């Protein structure tokens, strides 16, 4: 039963890079100050890779994803620095009409609530076809055929082409949204907590479908989630986000077998697991810092059981633990789990 997760021949880290984020900074200006949502994030997504972006609410994961597509509302948000490369071009410097060609075609995004993407007054078939026509030169009839194929790929019978969103359940709506997002065969799919609002049995169906779809099309996936179980099941690599920074990164096995950053360790300790026999959970003390008032030194130091005086003054840099595994911690060298 314990198969290797990566069935591909090339290990993910050696594949070509698809999207590279370099030193991204995002802030939001609001009454009362500036929210530092993303603080110097650098990340590489490779072709055909499933990268899990893990963190709790307010960590900045959604801001990172929305920056890639440049769909952050400006104002109040602002990309304060950094570059995002795809196909050799810095997307942050592209004019808006070029970005429009990318959205939905090269990079697509799906969200937790399917109704953010679905128009309640149009049939689902028409909406998928519309997404196709926007990017590909096709007649309406051809687009309709492709849309029907997409519906069947995501597990919806073609008779339902003419149904409206309200006639579908939550899980089915999310399938429609996935069909829309994948209709133009994007190279990268940004999935922001796509199954959080679904029942666990429906979630299993959707994740299964997404895995098969990904295998067929070779699309890279950036899976944003707070659920480490989903990460274990669907992702090749993991980036752990805390207070707008990537505090740990590595392949899925590296992170799950040997987490080095105290926050990652804390996350695992907070999980009530089906397997474990712990009587008491080991939650992380305290709360995530206020993004308007981030602590000096290591941002996790106020809550960290391993922190010392140095941690509170100096900002740690990325320490290579081994292979592709890096952790942003002065104590990264010590085994913790």
């Amino acid at each position: 039963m314990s198969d290797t997760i990566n069935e591909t021949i090339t290990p993910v880290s050696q594949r070509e890079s698809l999207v590279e984020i370099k030193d991204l900074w995002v802030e939001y200006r609001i009454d009362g100050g500036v929210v530092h949502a993303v603080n110097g994030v650098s990340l590489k997504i490779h072709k055909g890779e499933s990268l899990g972006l893990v963190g709790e609410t307010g960590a900045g994961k959604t801001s990172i994803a929305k920056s890639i597509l440049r769909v952050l509302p400006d104002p109040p948000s602002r990309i304060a620095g950094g570059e995002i490369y795809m196909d050799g071009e810095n997307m942050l410097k592209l004019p808006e009409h070029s970005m429009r060609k990318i959205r939905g075609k090269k990079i697509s995004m799906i969200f937790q609530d399917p109704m953010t993407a679905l128009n309640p007054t149009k049939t689902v078939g028409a909406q998928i076809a519309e997404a196709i026509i926007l990017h590909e030169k096709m007649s309406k009839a051809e687009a309709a055929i492709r849309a029907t194929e997409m519906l069947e790929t995501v597990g919806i019978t073609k008779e339902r082409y003419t149904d409206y969103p309200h006639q579908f359940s939550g899980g089915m709506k999310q399938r429609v949204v996935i069909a829309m997002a994948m209709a133009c065969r994007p190279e990268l799919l940004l999935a922001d907590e796509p199954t959080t609002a679904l029942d666990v049995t429906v979630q299993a169906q959707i994740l299964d479908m997404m895995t098969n779809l990904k295998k067929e099309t070779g699309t890279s996936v950036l899976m944003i989630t707070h659920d480490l179980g989903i990460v274990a099941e669907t992702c090749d690599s993991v980036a752990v986000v805390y207070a707008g920074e990537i505090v740990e990164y590595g392949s899925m096995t590296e992170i799950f077998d040997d987490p080095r950053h105290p926050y990652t360790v804390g996350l695992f300790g907070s999980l009530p697991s089906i397997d474990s026999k712990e009587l008491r959970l080991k939650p992380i003390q305290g709360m995530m810092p206020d993004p308007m008032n981030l602590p000096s030194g290591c941002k996790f130091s106020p809550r960290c059981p391993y922190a010392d005086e140095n941690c509170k003054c100096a900002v740690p840099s990325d320490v290579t633990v081994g292979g592709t595994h890096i952790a942003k911690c002065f104590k990264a060298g010590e085994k913790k789990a």
Partner: protein
Amino acid sequence: MTPILETKNLKKYFKTKKGMLHAVDGIDLSIQRGRTLGVVGESGCGKSTLGRTILHLLEPTEGSMRFNGKDITKVSPKELAQLREHMQIIFQDPFSSLNPRMTVSEILVEPLIISGKFTREEIEKKRVELLDTVGLPKRYANSYPHELDGGRRQRIGIGRALALEPDFIVCDEPVSALDVSIQAQILNLLQDLQEQRGLTYVFITHDLSVVKHISHDIMVMYLGQMVEQAPSEELFAHTYHPYTKALLSAIPVPNAHKRMQRILLKGEITSPVNPAPGCRFYSRCPYACEECKNPQRIEQVAPGHFISCCQARKINNL
């Protein structure tokens, strides 16, 4: 030992335009003092309705309930007021379950003010006590709910439920809306309180890992009916009902090397309005057969382990 709470054939139906919605359809419960019954199921299974019916926030349509041996199926307002001093509820949503125009202190002591049995000094003392019990620093006493985050707001909800010192608390998905690390803090708090005060919980959730952690006994519900019920360890060691099996297999495991043999259910949940007699899981069950269309009986397959499935013995080679 008289169970603290017992229900027999408890039903709650709602009249809708399309017909009768069978939200809770014949639930038998028996909970001993100081234990936690976890009620697990996905959306539409009726677990929240069950919790509210037990507390008379909804009136039962049929069936009976007993609290400490006394029949509480029909109660007068005065009896209900007395009952509420022993049975309380913690809500799921820490945002909508607190009045945005009341301060933390006001929310915590409101139950005491309403009961009218406490002097001002006693209420003041209680206020300080409650803040401490749920781990809220005193400086939040005059804050408003919108100034605090989800975890702290949930602590307020817990404090409010504890104010009248009840014996029995229905916890309606109390950690579902919280982040993982905050979830862990709250779960630990609930367990500590149970140990210190001998509280009995009905813990409603959709999250099987959470329920395993906190419950002594677990009841799995599907479309208003009990499909399987067993002590916690036993349920996970020996899962007999096809739905429970599917539910367990669906949970993504945060482990790099282990994988569950996934049972994927076909189709979607059917409607609880005017349901057909017989097993409600019929349309999605991989083992469905003709006999499943008849009303199912509840069988005991092991000590304390009950299921409602005509095929269970065959499937599990019992």
